[in-house]
Each structure stands twice: as C-alpha cells, then as structure tokens.
C-alpha cells in the first residue's frame, strides 16, 4: 500500500469524524476544537494532493485566524443552556442529506468528463513548484479579482468594527424605548 493512500484514508477518517463532532457536540467549545481538527486534516489532504500553498494557507488562515475569531466570540457570549439539536429536524434531515450526497457525488464525478484539461501536467510540476504556478496565475490573469479581494477584506474590517461598537446598539435601544 502506497503512503499517499494510507495518508488519504487516515486524514479523511479524522476529517469526517471531527465533522460529525462539529455538528453534534452540545458544548460549543468542543465544536470549535473539533473544527480545528477537521481543518488540520483537510490541510493534510491538500498536501497529499500536491497543493502545498493552499495547504499552508489553510492552516494559517482557517485553523489560526478564523478559529481565534470564534473563540473570542464564544468567550464573550455566556454558555448556551438550551438543547443543542432540534430533534424534529434531526430525523428529517438525515434521508434528505443522504439523497443530496448521492446527487452531489454523481454530478461531480460525471460532470468532470465534459471539461478540458489544462497545461499543468505532473511533468511541469517537477520543473516549477506548485506555489510558483498558483502565484503566477494569481498575479497575471486574476490580478483584478485579487485586488478586489483586498477591498472586500477592508470593507469587512470596517463593517465588523461598526457592528461591534457598543454606542450604536445603545442608541437604538434608547430611541426604541
């Protein structure tokens, strides 16, 4: 058995089990810890597929930055007392989820044959690295979306500061009362 096959099965098992934990843990802190485990396993899958740049960015952005956001908010909001899972939806969502899974798998596997293959064959990746290939495309063909992404981050930052400010909410409460 090849090493990449072993790595795939181990990492995907960790990812799926942790994802089930994310959905069904009652305590939200356990959910976030499960999410970190899932994200790191997915990052390992990216490395296994040969996408080093995306794997590293996954750990940097998701498993560190975004999870820190969640932990900060969870530490501010007191512990949630109600039941975690709505039982009437839990029973209903399982069969529909299974049907959706079959459809997603079918459509993605059979839709692929209609696509054209690109120029980046494994032989090319022996000469240039994955990071160089991705970055070259990012800074030539997709330069404008890249700049727009920076604008989105700026807008999101300003929006988060405005939403998180205390004064606005208090003003609305006084006006409403």
């Amino acid at each position, binding site marked *: 058995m090849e090493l990449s096959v072993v790595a*795939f099965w181990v990492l995907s098992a960790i*990812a*799926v089990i942790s*994802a089930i934990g*994310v*959905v069904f843990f009652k305590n*939200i802190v356990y959910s976030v810890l499960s*999410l970190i485990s899932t994200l790191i396993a*997915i990052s390992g*899958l*990216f490395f296994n*597929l040969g*996408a080093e*740049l*995306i794997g590293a960015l*996954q750990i940097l952005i*998701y498993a560190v*930055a*975004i999870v820190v*956001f*969640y932990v900060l*908010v969870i530490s*501010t*909001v007191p512990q*949630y007392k109600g039941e*975690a*899972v*709505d039982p009437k939806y*839990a029973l209903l*969502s*399982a069969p529909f*989820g299974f049907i*959706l*899974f079959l459809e*997603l*798998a079918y459509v*993605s*596997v059979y839709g*692929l044959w209609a696509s*054209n*293959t*690109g*120029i*980046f064959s494994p032989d090319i990746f022996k000469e240039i690295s*994955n990071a160089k*290939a*991705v970055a070259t*495309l*990012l800074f030539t063909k997709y330069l404008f979306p890249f700049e727009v*992404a920076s604008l*989105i*981050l700026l807008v*999101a930052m300003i*929006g*988060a*500061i*405005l*939403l*998180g400010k205390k004064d606005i*909410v208090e003003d609305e409460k006084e006006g409403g009362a």
Partner: protein
Amino acid sequence: MVPYEYYVALSGLLMVLGLIGVIVRKNIIAMLISTELMLNAVNIAFVAFDMKLHDVVGQVFVFFILTIAAAEAAIGLGLIMAIYRMKKDVDVEKLTELKG
C-alpha cells in the same frame, strides 16, 4: 495515488454534514461553524478537480474562498455580537422578530 472520485465523495460528505449542521443546530454560532465546514468541502473538490484536470485555476479560487471566509467570519460574528447585546440570546428559536 488515490482516485480523485474518493476526494469528491469526501467533499460531498463534508458538504452534507455542514448542511445538516445548519438545519439541526439551534445555537446561531454553531450554525456559522457548520457554514465553515461547507466552505471547506468546496475547497477539497476544487483542489481534487485541479489534480485530475492538470490545472491550477481551482487553487486560485480556493485562495479567494479563504479570503471570503475570513470576511464572512468577521461580519457574521460581529452580527452575532450585536444580536446578543440587544436580545441577550443566541437561540434561533427565540430570534423571531421578522416572523409575520
């Protein structure tokens, strides 16, 4: 090498788990976390198709998805903080002002 169909199946499984999480959970923060799970499922599918089709465009799109996910987490959690400050609750069953 693992066939790419396995990666696609894993991606579909994570997507459905995230969707079930959004439907089933009652805590609004847990719903947002399930959304992150769905975004990650899409990322796996992008990278797996890239390896199959000998291209790197999918990885560029994963880069943009990471950016959008960071923005979405910041805005979503800011909204949750604002909601919590007004209503003192994060239960979606109790946040029903817009219900007719």
